[in-house]
């Protein structure tokens, strides 16, 4: 009989594990004291730790902004480096609260995978990098080429589509990690490496001789990169979306990290609503009134983050392009706070 009791006890444990509590994500984060953020880990400009272990990047700063909004402390984030292949499983199983890992918003990821894309924080497109000595002018000349690519990405699919649509023969070699794929390209295993155009600039810096390589002009796909959350928690979905929107709205209103405190005295109703000196929009989200003030104070507005991580303040020197505000020729646009 004792064996049976043991079995029953064990069964109980297993069942409790299987039914792991699924309360509100925000409550879980507050209880835990840190935000778990799924990040890239190998991509300069988007998510990479430096030699001291400090994470930097556009996606990383979004997670810092979330932590600032929740805890008033941008450092209460635990970054989890995820491969392209494993990223969705990590989010689905609750290992991370938000997946900010240069992930393309597609319909199947939004539905079949049980996830929600929040808001696009970088408008990207896929390109190719090749050696200069091949003297290529266009990706259409890549017939019969060997291309290195990372596994489990939209890139992998676009690559096959592009070669098929242009009736070119493709040999692709897929790797689990960015670094492996880039290393293989650098060693001559492949003629070309393909990923999102933003990534190509970062990858180029990692090559042995960056000047021997050139990015081809073609952009072969739409890659709207967005942070993802799990289905079924609308409050958390709203928070991630609106923290990003707050940073974009702040850029539009001219509120920066440096001048955010002065703006507390502003009479502009848009500024007052955003910074919480009027209304209780932060509380409606489940945060505090000064949520956006915290974000801007600790992290800065979208434009500042962009320039710092991928723009002129970074080694990547990517121009704003599509990611400029809608008022300045780009398509970066945020709904109003009201």
């Amino acid at each position, binding site marked *: 009989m004792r064996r049976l009791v043991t079995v029953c006890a064990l069964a109980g444990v297993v069942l409790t594990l299987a039914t792991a509590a699924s309360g509100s994500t925000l409550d879980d984060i507050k209880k835990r004291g840190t935000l778990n953020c799924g990040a890239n880990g190998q991509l300069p400009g988007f998510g990479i730790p430096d030699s001291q272990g400090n994470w930097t990047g556009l996606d990383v700063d979004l997670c810092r902004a979330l932590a600032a909004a929740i805890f008033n402390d941008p450092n209460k984030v635990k970054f989890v480096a995820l491969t392209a292949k494993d990223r969705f499983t990590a989010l689905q199983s609750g290992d991370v609260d938000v997946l900010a890992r240069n992930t393309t918003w597609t319909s199947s990821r939004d539905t*079949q995978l049980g996830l929600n894309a929040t808001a696009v924080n970088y408008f990207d497109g896929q390109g190719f990098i090749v050696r200069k000595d091949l003297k290529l002018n266009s990706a259409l000349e890549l017939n019969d080429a*060997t291309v290195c690519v990372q596994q489990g990405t939209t890139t992998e699919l676009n690559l096959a*589509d592009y070669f098929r649509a242009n009736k070119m023969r493709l040999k692709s070699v*897929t790797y689990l990690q960015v670094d492996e794929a880039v290393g293989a390209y650098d060693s001559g295993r492949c003629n070309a490496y393909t990923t999102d155009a933003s990534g190509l600039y970062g990858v180029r810096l990692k090559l042995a001789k960056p000047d021997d390589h050139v990015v081809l002009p073609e952009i072969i796909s739409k890659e709207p990169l967005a942070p993802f959350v799990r289905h079924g928690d609308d409050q958390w979905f709203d928070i991630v979306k609106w923290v990003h929107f707050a940073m974009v709205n702040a850029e539009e209103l001219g509120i920066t990290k440096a001048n955010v405190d002065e703006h507390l005295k502003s009479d502009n109703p848009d500024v007052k609503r955003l910074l919480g000196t009027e209304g209780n929009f932060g509380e409606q989200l489940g945060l505090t009134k000064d949520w956006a003030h915290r974000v801007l104070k600790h992290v800065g507005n979208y434009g500042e983050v962009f320039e710092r991580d991928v723009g002129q303040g970074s080694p990547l020197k990517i121009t704003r392009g599509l990611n400029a505000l809608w008022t300045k020729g780009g398509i970066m646009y945020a709904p109003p706070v009201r």
Partner: protein
Amino acid sequence: MTLGAESGPPKIPLLRDPRFRALVIQVALCAALAWIAYELEEEVRANLVRNHLSSGFGFWSQPAGFDISQALIDYSSSASTYGRAFWVGLVNTLVVAAIGIVLATIVGFVAGIAQLSSNWLVARLAAGYVQLIRNIPLLLQLLFWYNAVLKTLPGFRDSIALWGGGYLNNRGLYLPAPDLNGNGLPIFAAFCLGLVGAIVLAMLARRQRLGVGLAAGAGLVLVLGLPFAAFVATGATFAFEYPEMSRFNLRGGLEVLPEFVALLAGLVIYTGAFIAETVRAGLMAVPRGQTEAAQALGLSRLLTLRRVIVPQAMRVIIPPLTSQYLNLTKNSSLAVAIGYPDLVQIFTGTVLNQTGNAVEIVAITMAVYLVISLVTSFAMNIYNARMALAER
């Protein structure tokens, strides 16, 4: 009769009957296990629904849309399904495992026997190989072969030209491929038929205690004659298709990927070291008197080994050898680290990532490895039974 019944053991109350109690406990245990399995399954299902995750096997017939670097069966990113991608991955796994098992056996037997050699240098070299390789994790060895050895080969423009029209570079090995203008399949089938015929013939000859020479001759005729007959019958012409330099790559011929070579080399050398130890243990288990008796009969060293020692050692070697074969097959899933498109890389990699049906895909993959392992064990058990000491 009545007397016998009365003198039987006294009646025990049902609850204290050990047989009855054992029965109750076992039934209860089975019921509990079934209940746990049921609850787990329900829980997983409910969790999938709650998180709006897709489930089921509908993905199997959906188009895959991604490219695979090594497809030994027809596959194209445009026309093939996820199901097809599964088969491509499975074939790639089986190919590397099958070739790996054959080569690892050869390496293992040579190194195992060499360890017991009376030649000091040979014995030390073999022992050194076993100790060095056995104590380094396989993953590191794979990365070594792939990154440190194969990647340092020259680029395709400076390919090393091999005798007979082949090339070697950091994108792989390119060999001339026999071109039978589309009649390869019937000729290959005829070759297989001839091979089976030759094996049957050899077995018959053995049973009838006929001369080995006769069976070998007839077998040779079958193995070579049948494909030749098919060659003539189909009107095929024979030529070699040579790999040629194109703008980006070598084109045509037979291409062996560096990922495949690195994985195969890693698996063979690693598993070979373990097999060597198994073989050494088996050889040492044969009593010394057997060697002495064989030598007293005037048998040569080689003949002693072949006819006396190894057949007896096999009885000790086969069971652990089976587990080494299983290990090799399962370890081939480390392919994922170096980009060889095996079952795990394709199916639990790209397919899982794109469809999100994690539970189904991982379950299928586990079932596949289970089946491969069980089949290997089954085959080895048959072989073991044949080799076992025939007791009369």
